[in-house]
């Protein structure tokens, strides 16, 4: 059993209990043992002084790509789980677009066993909706869940068949899991390299219109209404999507949504100079979209912040814009971007942010954690929300380096991350 840990004198923010107070947190036997004033741990416990820092349930990311099995040169479950821990995450959900894809219990079990070996952040696999992500026939949800999958998604391959999506939403209800969808009407998006707008026109790049996402979002919302199934909309990027989700929630549908740090931070202008580190899918959109996504986070239309952490080898991004792969790293910059772009400008409070990065994600995918209630898993992060630092990709724990934020000054970072009562990350010379 791991050594008990006493975290003393920090600002304890536990969104699950709406608590925000200076207190001690005592962790023993892998669980939260007590939270309160003047706790004295048993002899031999490790004491961590957290005065001036924030103690919170560990951050949880519902959307990462860890590339294993199949693309271990980009990331492995071990390096991804370490990058997660360094970013303050105690748990991440791994998308199934691996090779082979996570469409069977063997592959799901493999991810879980690799994560156990790594002993860093927890890794929860997401199974595929369809066999081979082909969009044709349903995967065996029962077996996927039995092996440890917490949700299903075909991720980068949007489910184009409305019938298949309907069936998935219905069938998933049996197991109480959400269906997470990457919303993209592919006939509209085909060949697109960035957001369709003034910048794409100037750069001569084929655009992906906002409508490509919104048509799919509308369909998924309608199917959620039809089936009563839980649809989770991945990485929302447009103001139109935000508006439709707001309306769906108002009508009481089981629709939840995530937004990435890059979509609430950057616009399509970031693609200027054919910057392939600004190439992603969905693409970076317009200032009005960024503004709408920030408001959607503020009013709860968007439930969670998720990173869509997408490692790529540096030379894959070192090429013509049309041919470069989509996606950027997210785990080691997410919290800082959220603090810098959302909390410091006063859009949301720090407790609200932690709700959207810990408590709420745990609720959506029914994961342990997201709370410091006594008896909860000892998944805890100590954050320094004021720390100023400059993004230097060469210091990332991730195997990859693809970020458009290199050189950017940010505020806020994780100092120490505890998973199952064990310290898995501790920042040196802070």
């Amino acid at each position, binding site marked *: 059993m791991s050594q008990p840990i006493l975290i003393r004198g920090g600002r304890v923010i536990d969104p699950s209990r709406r608590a925000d107070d200076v207190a001690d947190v005592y962790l023993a036997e892998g669980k939260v043992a007590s939270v309160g004033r003047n706790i004295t741990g048993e002899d031999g416990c490790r004491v961590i002084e957290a005065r001036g820092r924030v103690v919170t349930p560990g951050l949880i990311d519902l959307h990462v790509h860890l590339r294993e099995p199949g693309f271990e040169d980009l990331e492995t479950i071990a390096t991804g789980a370490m990058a997660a821990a360094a970013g303050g995450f105690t748990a991440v959900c791994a998308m199934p677009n691996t090779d082979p894809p996570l469409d069977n219990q063997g592959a799901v079990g493999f991810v879980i066993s690799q994560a156990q070996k790594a002993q860093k952040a927890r890794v929860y696999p997401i199974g595929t909706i369809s066999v081979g992500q082909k969009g044709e026939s349903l995967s065996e949800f029962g077996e996927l869940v039995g092996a440890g999958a917490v949700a299903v998604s075909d991720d980068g391959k949007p489910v184009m068949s409305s019938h298949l999506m309907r069936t998935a939403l219905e069938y998933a209800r049996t197991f109480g899991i959400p269906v997470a969808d990457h919303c993209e009407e592919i006939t509209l998006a085909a060949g697109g390299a960035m957001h369709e*707008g003034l910048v794409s026109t100037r750069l001569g790049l084929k655009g992906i219109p906002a409508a490509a996402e919104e048509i799919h979002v509308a369909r998924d919302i309608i199917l959620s209404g039809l089936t009563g199934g839980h649809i989770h909309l991945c990485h929302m990027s447009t103001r139109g999507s935000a508006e439709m989700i707001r309306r769906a929630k108002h009508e009481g549908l089981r629709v939840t949504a995530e937004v990435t740090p890059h979509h609430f931070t950057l616009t399509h202008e970031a693609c200027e100079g054919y910057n392939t580190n600004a190439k992603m899918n969905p693409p970076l959109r317009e200032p009005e979209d960024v503004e709408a996504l920030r408001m959607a986070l503020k009013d709860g239309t968007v439930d969670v912040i998720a990173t869509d952490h997408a490692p790529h080898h540096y030379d894959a991004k070192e090429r013509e814009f049309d041919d470069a792969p989509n996606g950027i790293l997210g785990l080691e910059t997410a919290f800082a971007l959220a603090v810098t772009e959302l909390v410091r400008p006063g859009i949301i409070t720090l407790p609200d942010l932690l709700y959207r990065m810990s408590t709420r994600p745990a609720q959506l995918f029914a994961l342990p954690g997201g709370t410091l209630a006594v008896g909860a898993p000892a998944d805890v992060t100590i954050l320094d929300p004021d720390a100023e630092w400059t993004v230097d990709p060469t210091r990332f724990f991730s195997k990859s380096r693809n970020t458009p934020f290199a050189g950017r000054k940010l505020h806020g970072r994780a100092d120490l991350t505890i998973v199952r009562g064990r310290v898995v990350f501790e920042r040196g010379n802070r």
Partner: protein
Amino acid sequence: MTPAAAALGKDLLGLENLTREQIQLILGTAERFKEVSERPIKKVPALRGKTIVNLFFEASTRTRISFEFAEKRLSADTVNVGSSGSSVAKGETLVDTARNLEAMRIDMVVIRHGASGSAEFLSRRIRSNVVNAGDGKHEHPTQGLLDLLTLKDRFGKVEGLKVAICGDVLHSRVARSNIWGLKKLGAEVAVCGPASLLPSGIAALGVEVIPRIDDAIAWADALNVLRLQLERMTGGFIPSLREYNRVFGVTRERLERAGKDLVIMHPGPMNRGVEIDSDVADGPHSVILPQVTNGVAVRMAVLYLLAGGSPDWQQGGGE
């Protein structure tokens, strides 16, 4: 570096980032180079000892040969590399190809490539001067410049002219370079074509959108008729070529109906009977062949200026 090189920068990637003065400098220099091609011995020593690689990853007749003539008439040593028969066919990346060429100590690269931004991409990774000879749907700056020179020849100046760019603007690098160049020199610019072939937000570039070809003809002093890029038409942007010609084709009948003299340009290669009828292309108002002639002079000017040549190049003069 001489003042001229500084004035133009290291590369010519597009007309968007050139100033009015830089464009005028190139056109003025081209004006002086025209005469070289009219001599019995078409050669000046301006780029003697310079090595230029022509990297053409897309099919091209006019542009490739025009660049090659420009280089040879300036006495540069040139090498042509295409995608077939080179390491590109073996999967070598663009940046590796260019770095390997540079390792052989070259001075300039002229690149034609199917991906937008490829010239800029290259320019940031090699020390040699890079000249964009057409990158995807982005820009084709020397074409834009030769179009400007041709208009200047015809009208005496570009300022105040009304130029309509007609056809497949969506896929056209020529259109983009023309829009920037014409606007910078004070022309009024309109685009005309089916809405499915006009890029999103084009009006924000400061051009008028004229939906019907007859209205464009009535409005314009000059038409720049773009090639319908049949090879990019897989998306089904128009129902058929026959209908395109009927609704958007520049025909003699339409020109006659307008009852005025109109200068007709086309960047080539033409689809006769699609975007332009033969009797218009070959007719009295067509400047399509003078465009080609001017192409050599413009490219000589660009190469010469990028290599650090003095803007007041005189007959027979070198550096």
